């Protein structure tokens, strides 16, 4: 049973389109992180959200942490081919050490 679920699993869009990907759980997390992973590389941290309801913006990327700290979304405006990659969410429970990763959303942005 996946502790964190991500949707959609795959997404292929044209350059310039907007998109939203989701990270959901039945568990409460003390913090949640989003990563992007490119083929043959390790994940790279994009953002950490800690407070329920928190919204963070990183250029064309907007991240939101749900009020109940069980879910999160990532919205990309005007997607570019450089946004292509595997987007992973990872949650930490009870301020522990272990990060639990979701299965990821594989995004392909076509020029």
């Amino acid at each position, binding site marked *: 049973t996946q502790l964190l679920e991500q949707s959609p699993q795959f997404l292929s869009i044209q350059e310039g389109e907007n998109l939203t990907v989701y990270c959901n759980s039945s568990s409460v997390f003390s*913090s949640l992180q989003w990563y992007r992973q490119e083929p*043959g590389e390790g994940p790279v941290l994009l953002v950490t959200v800690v407070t329920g309801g928190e919204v963070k913006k990183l250029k064309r990327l907007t991240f939101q942490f749900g009020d109940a700290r069980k879910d999160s979304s990532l919205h990309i405006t005007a997607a570019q081919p450089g946004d292509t990659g595997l987007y992973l969410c*990872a949650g930490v429970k009870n301020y522990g*050490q*272990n*990060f*639990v*990763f979701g*299965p990821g959303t594989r995004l392909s942005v076509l020029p």
Partner: protein
Amino acid sequence: GAGVSQSPRYKVAKRGQDVALRCDPISGHVSLFWYQQALGQGPEFLTYFQNEAQLDKSGLPSDRFFAERPEGSVSTLKIQRTQQEDSAVYLCASSRARTGVWETQYFGPGTRLLVL
């Protein structure tokens, strides 16, 4: 730049062989994590070190998996009597702080292990 490095990048092993995977964290980073990433999946936590102390090894799938970080810097993940289900990418990450919750984890490129 002095990021996290891992070696070898690729390893092919015959079933039953022992393998050793090396991780060189960023200099001065206190925390070190090992993850296993199966094809098409997200990374799964294996074990965590704070300096040389292995504080959590709850994610190691069996007693064939062993990790060490004897001097608090370089770490080695050893898999004994490899099985086909061990085929995966093994990722190492390090972070500055003693608690990893809010600190950035810097990942290495991973070692891709294929067991035939």
